[in-house]
């Protein structure tokens, strides 16, 4: 971690915005040219990337490693399921609202307790909290469907008074893309705001930040809540895409993958987690197609991950870190 250079007028980040535009345009075109399997794959990368980006607010910007993001993701899924199963006709807006409320409530709960702890203790406590949610969801069969989870039908894409249509894979991809791009710009703005600067100073030197007079705990709580909300949002999107909610997605493995995405792509860049998700999922897809390997893809993938931790701790996009935050 390098210290922030002294404040000097920022050069306009032309290169950054050109790159951003190109990537977004490519992602808009992607579903039109890709075959159906890869179309779906691209959408999934965006959803997992959003989840990983939400975790980057904590890992990359505040210096807190969360091993419990599956809880927020899963509650987003179950929140969406609740809205789609109880309210007729199923409404997209309500699914988003319920999902965000569920994830937000979980985030408040976790943030209140976990932010009092630091480093590995924070990591372990988030892990334990996510397991609490997992056990509750897994055993409370009457409400959550237990091991089988819940299935529901996709709501229509509705813009009130203007338009209403069924989702096709292409429009769904665009919908996810829109949500993801807006979330990215919002989170980027937040990390560059004075609030975001305080988070980064907590990462660099917590006692000093406290000494300057910032109420560190309060900032951490807000950071966890923000992160939880965006994780919940990605959960809602995933539920909408797959039309089910299942306890597997609350399990710790998902949290672990989120951390892997961050490390592989580059923490503290917001774009890195998307790259990491794409890299991981593509690698998984490629490895699981190899003969003899199939379901054991995690063996080479795990080894690649360990090698990257040792030799490439900044991740794939780490070298761009300064520019991506410009």
């Amino acid at each position, binding site marked *: 971690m390098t210290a922030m250079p002294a404040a000097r007028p920022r050069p306009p980040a032309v290169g950054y915005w050109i790159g951003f535009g190109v990537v977004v345009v490519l992602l808009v075109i992607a579903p039109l040219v890709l075959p159906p399997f890869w179309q779906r794959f691209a959408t999934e990368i965006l959803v997992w990337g959003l989840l990983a980006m939400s975790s980057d607010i904590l890992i990359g910007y505040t210096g807190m490693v969360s091993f419990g993001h599956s809880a927020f993701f899963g509650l987003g899924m179950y929140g969406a399921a609740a809205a789609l199963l109880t309210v007729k006709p199923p409404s997209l807006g309500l699914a988003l609202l319920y999902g965000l409320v569920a994830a937000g409530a979980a985030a408040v709960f976790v943030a209140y307790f976990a932010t*009092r*702890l630091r480093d590995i203790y924070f990591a372990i406590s988030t892990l334990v909290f996510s397991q609490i949610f997992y056990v509750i969801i897994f055993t409370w069969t009457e409400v959550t469907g237990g091991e089988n989870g819940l299935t529901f039908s996709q709501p229509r894409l509705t813009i009130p008074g203007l338009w209403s249509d069924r989702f096709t894979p292409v429009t769904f991809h665009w919908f996810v893309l829109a949500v993801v791009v807006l979330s990215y710009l919002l989170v980027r703005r937040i990390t560059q705001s004075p609030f975001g600067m305080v988070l980064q100073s907590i990462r660099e030197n917590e006692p000093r930040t406290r000494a300057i007079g910032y109420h560190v705990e309060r900032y951490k709580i807000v950071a966890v809540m923000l992160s939880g909300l965006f994780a919940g949002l990605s959960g809602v999107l995933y539920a909408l895409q797959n039309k089910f909610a299942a306890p597997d997605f609350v399990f710790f493995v998902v949290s*672990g993958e989120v951390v892997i995405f961050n490390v592989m792509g580059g923490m503290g860049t917001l774009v890195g987690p998307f790259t990491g998700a794409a890299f991981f999922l593509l690698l998984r897809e490629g490895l699981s197609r190899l003969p003899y390997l199939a379901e*054991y893809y995690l063996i080479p993938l795990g080894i690649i991950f360990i090698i990257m931790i*040792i030799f490439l701790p900044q991740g794939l996009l780490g070298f761009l870190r300064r520019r991506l935050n410009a």
Partner: protein
Amino acid sequence: MDQIIIQTLHGLVNGMVLAMVASGLTLIFGIMDIVNFAHGDLLMLGAFVGASVLGVTGNYWLALLVAAVVIAALGVVLQVTTLRPLIGRDPLTTILATFGISLVLQKYALWQWGPTVRRISEPVPGDFTLFHLQYPWYRIATAVLAGLIIGGLWLFLKYGKYGIWIRATTQDRVMAQAMGIPVPLVYTAVFAIGSAMAAASGVLFGPFAGVTQTMGFDFTLRAFIVVVVGGMGNLGGSILASIFVSLLESYASIVVSPAQAVIVSFVVLVLTMLFRPTGLFVPTPK
């Protein structure tokens, strides 16, 4: 009443096995500042190695020994190849690295031994009557054996020459190095000892519920809980905490299902971290 006595016995036996797992974990943490996410998977691999040796030779004690030695060797390899390069980095990177190891080990076990449950037959036959239950002697023997192994570890740390090296490294690694203790070697040895403890507890636990490649995570989580509750890096504290948490879980399972009883230990953990983050069973730090 008889329910309570049965559950007390149950909690004590589970607590002793857990204490063995946790003592390896806490040793590794206390000396190397490494939170070993792969600890449960080393246990799982040990149980599989034990089951295989048992299948070939039919000798349980040989299986226990071979499992411990094989996994200790694996521990040495893992420490030298992945953890040694990370010394001096943020402790969080070691969590990530051991998490990666855990993924690899789990899938390796699936590849090598398949998804079916392996049974380890009970080395001590027979059972005795406890109220309406036939309680197997094996469980009692396991608890006693676990106690003996932990006691042996404690004696080794207290009086053995190399045990004193290990404790010196825990207290002050720079000073230890200055006094001529080969600190990197101590690190590797400690990781090997911790791995062997995990493997041995895997073989001990094997007859309770069978061996599957997913059993590791559960143990990792529970060992984390008791290690934090007992005070990170504190051997005695972890052992007391293991028994304490296991007893609480046993009593809770009288009321709710065992799957939900796990939440009790989660709650104990959270309360400990909030009100006594240095651990329940250690003297208050000054």
